[in-house]
């Protein structure tokens, strides 16, 4: 009996969490020109209307490019950092690890303000580079955390065995560490892509005419006209996110992102 009440409660909370998404998607298909639910009629015209808004398309392209760059930088820098933190013991190692995770706890608005104050004198406001720097700041902690957890689950004996068999550190990394980290890297990268793609607050201070990201362009759009076009864009985004989640699940699950370790050791 108690279990049933709990189950109903949990389902209720899940519905609450899913509500906005569940509402947005059907709204993209309604005939009416106002965002309404339930939608009346069925049409795909709002999806094709997206094409009539070049600013949305260019913002989408920007967001994709920024996400790819930020993720690439985070992967390289993050993996190097995580390897160094694991291999070498030095005083303050834990504090340093915390430092790399700090952007996660820092209020986004503070990060946004501070970064803007540095980018502006450098002339990096409204530039691609400026946005990549800001996004890397936000995605790096996720990579450090995911790849770090993956690396922690990697049996040290495997790497030592490689050394005793004649592999120098670079060969060990290439033939043993990297392949076994593989899925952890992919999960971290996917997560990073999503985080960057959805990033709002830091971008808020950096974007401008000529260099916009999709979330901010959508925000602008809604300020002036609330029509189902925005719901159509949202639907596409939801589809992309869902595909990404399925990919992550296939690669070993979201559990990994939240701290569970990869399995790399022998029995």
């Amino acid at each position, binding site marked *: 009996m108690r279990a049933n009440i709990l*189950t109903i409660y949990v389902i209720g909370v899940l519905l609450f969490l899913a509500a906005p998404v569940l509402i947005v998607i059907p709204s993209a298909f309604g005939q009416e020109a106002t*965002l*309404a639910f339930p939608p009346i009629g069925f049409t795909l015209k709002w999806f094709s209307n997206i094409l009539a808004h070049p600013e949305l398309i260019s913002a989408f392209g920007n967001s994709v490019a920024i996400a790819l760059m930020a993720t690439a930088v985070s992967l390289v820098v993050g993996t190097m950092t995580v390897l*160094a933190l694991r291999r070498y013991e030095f005083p303050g190692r834990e504090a340093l690890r915390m430092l790399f995770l*700090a952007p996660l706890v820092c209020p*986004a608005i503070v990060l946004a303000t*501070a970064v803007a104050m540095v980018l502006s004198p450098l002339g990096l406001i409204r530039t691609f580079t400026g946005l990549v720097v800001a996004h890397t700041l936000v995605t790096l902690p996720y990579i450090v955390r995911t790849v770090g957890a993956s690396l922690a689950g990697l049996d040290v004996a495997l790497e030592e065995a490689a050394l005793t068999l004649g592999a120098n550190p670079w060969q060990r990394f290439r033939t043993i560490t990297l392949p076994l980290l593989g899925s952890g890297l992919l999960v971290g990268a996917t997560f990073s892509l999503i985080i960057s793609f959805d990033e709002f607050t830091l971008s808020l*201070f950096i974007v401008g005419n000529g260099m916009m990201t999709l979330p901010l362009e959508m925000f602008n759009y*809604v300020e002036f006209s609330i029509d189902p076009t925005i719901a159509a864009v949202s639907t596409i985004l939801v589809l992309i*996110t869902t595909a990404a989640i399925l990919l992550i699940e296939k690669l070993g699950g979201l559990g990994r992102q939240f701290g569970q370790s990869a399995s790399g050791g022998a029995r």
Partner: protein
Amino acid sequence: MLLLLTPGLVFIGAALIWPLLIMLRVSFLQRFPGPVVYTIAKYAALLDDNYFIDITLRTFGLGLVVTVATAVIGYPVAWYLARSPSRWRHLVFLGVVYPLLVSVVVRTVGWTILLGTQGVINKLLISLGIIHDPLVLMESFWSVAVGLVHVLLPFMILSIAAVLGRIDKSYSEAAYTLGATPMRNFVTVTLPLSIEGLAAGSVIVFCLTIGTYITPVWLGRGHVTVLAISIFDEMVTLVDWPTGAALGMLLTVATLLLLAAYGVFLSRYTKR
């Protein structure tokens, strides 16, 4: 070798530490960009002004409300995730994590459709005859609170679930054999053991709430001003960077104090 560590150190130094230091410096300037005149006038103005005190109280009040709400609402879900042997557990886990990955813009559009004057709830209530005129569900502190609870609930649930999952079931089982009823068992055994998870989740939720921008802007429609909105106004609209920086510093200090308190709590608590 330090060679491996250098890129990371350089980046964090340049993208996090340096900007924060700059922000600290700017908060003590008269104008920025401009001639270098150091002053604490900006801070003084903030601490004196009722407007800003109001905003600060509202922001922290929001933090408190959202934290308590997510803790209360989220705990049972965390329990389900950690303890239930059901085979739907993984789906529930996905259901909790999924909203985190959906763009906040998408979610806010959804909330608008739900809560707007022509939104779902109003339409439903009018069609049921409960009300005649649409309720203004947005534009209020509470709509912002609900929106934030929605955004931050997964963080709280996951924090608690992680700790609950690690608690050895045999503690509860021992309590049962000693005569504890399920309710007393929970209150006296499980709840205290899960405090760590509650604390971690609360810190995350509170920190994220006091720094939030988009949800108050959108759901508040200009009627709910929080610190983040104020910072934006100072930085972009009024172009008074020193004041913006000062507000940012105040927010940072509040966050650091909270983290320090959490750290003290952790070390004292886990030393039992």
